């Protein structure tokens, strides 16, 4: 496995951890100092670290709770792309996060301003907020992942979540 593949493997672990955490913690997070809801929305792409066994693209119904998603996790696959819905203070973001932490098809909250410059300011604020949310979630994951003892405990939690899927 080369460096690039190893980097992406870390991204896949993060996405899978985040998906599990949204379910185990009922989608309730504290991000940017505010209560924030985060749930898996309408799309999941799963695959193995070695590209063997193919890719599963799940879009119909509720992919996160589907039997196909559970089977893919139990076969050792991890999330490669997840579409999330984030809500805070009456505003909603939907976005797909991939294993390189790129945002795809991100929809920002609709601005209620009228002047184009004010709308742009609202869009920039919303984009920054989304970036901050990704950073905070990744930091939370990375601090656990890069501490051997904490990761050991987290693996048990993730393993049980996968077994129960």
């Amino acid at each position, binding site marked *: 496995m080369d460096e690039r593949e190893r980097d992406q493997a870390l991204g896949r672990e993060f996405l899978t951890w985040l998906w599990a955490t949204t379910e185990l913690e009922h989608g309730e997070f504290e991000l940017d100092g505010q209560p924030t809801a985060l749930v898996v929305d309408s799309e999941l792409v799963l695959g193995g670290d070695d590209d063997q066994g193919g890719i599963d693209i799940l879009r119909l119904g509720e992919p996160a709770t589907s039997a196909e998603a559970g089977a893919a996790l139990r076969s050792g696959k991890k999330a490669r792309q997840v579409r999330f819905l984030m809500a805070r203070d009456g505003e909603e973001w939907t976005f797909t996060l991939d294993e390189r932490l790129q945002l795809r098809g991100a929809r920002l909250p609709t601005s209620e301003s009228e002047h184009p410059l004010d709308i742009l300011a609202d869009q*920039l604020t919303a984009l920054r907020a989304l970036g901050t949310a990704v950073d905070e979630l990744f930091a939370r994951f990375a601090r656990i992942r890069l501490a051997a003892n904490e990761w050991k405990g987290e693996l048990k939690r993730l393993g049980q979540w*996968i077994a*129960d899927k």
Partner: protein
Amino acid sequence: MLLPRSISVRRYAVTGKVPDPTSEDLAAALARGAFVPLGADSPEDESAGWTGFDNFLDTAPDVATSFAHGVLRLSLRMDKRVIPAGLVRAHVALERKALAASGERKPTKRQLDELRQGVLDMLRPQAQPKTTVVRGLWDFKGKMLYLLTTAQTPAERFAVFFASAFGDRRLVQLEPPALVAHLAATKDRVSQLDTLEPADLRLPADRRTTRRAASAEEA
């Protein structure tokens, strides 16, 4: 001026000093890197440069209209003249046929290269450049750049052009390992990345009894 309803974004940290938006240096850097169209008689096949964020035909972007709310809106236009290989081959074949008909001996490799170059020179003025535009939002406050694409090649070209246009500043894509080094909360753990191997997230094989299976057994 506004962002599209749906956007795809690569995030970068911008290294180096944040420029003063009112400085002449920044205005000069933008003007120096402004897009210059490929001329019909230009020997170049590629051109890249800054254009207006809202219209890539605007080849004179300026800081006054591009900077708002702490963000410089950049648009990089990349034109590449493409002469279809099949068309070149067809013209070369015609030229060779004409040579043979005039009783010339079989052309040498050098003559063939010259023939091909002559065909390329003839076709170049007629070839329409293919245009690619990549837009970015340089957030001075957060020392970040949000590139509005996830396509690899244009993103890489944008990063190279940005570094050449704005001096000692460069873009570091915030992928998982780079983000560990970038975030204050995790930068003390960067050294752990060297020995990191992908984990199997499942329970060990001997403990993979699912809750469903356990309930079924109990029943």
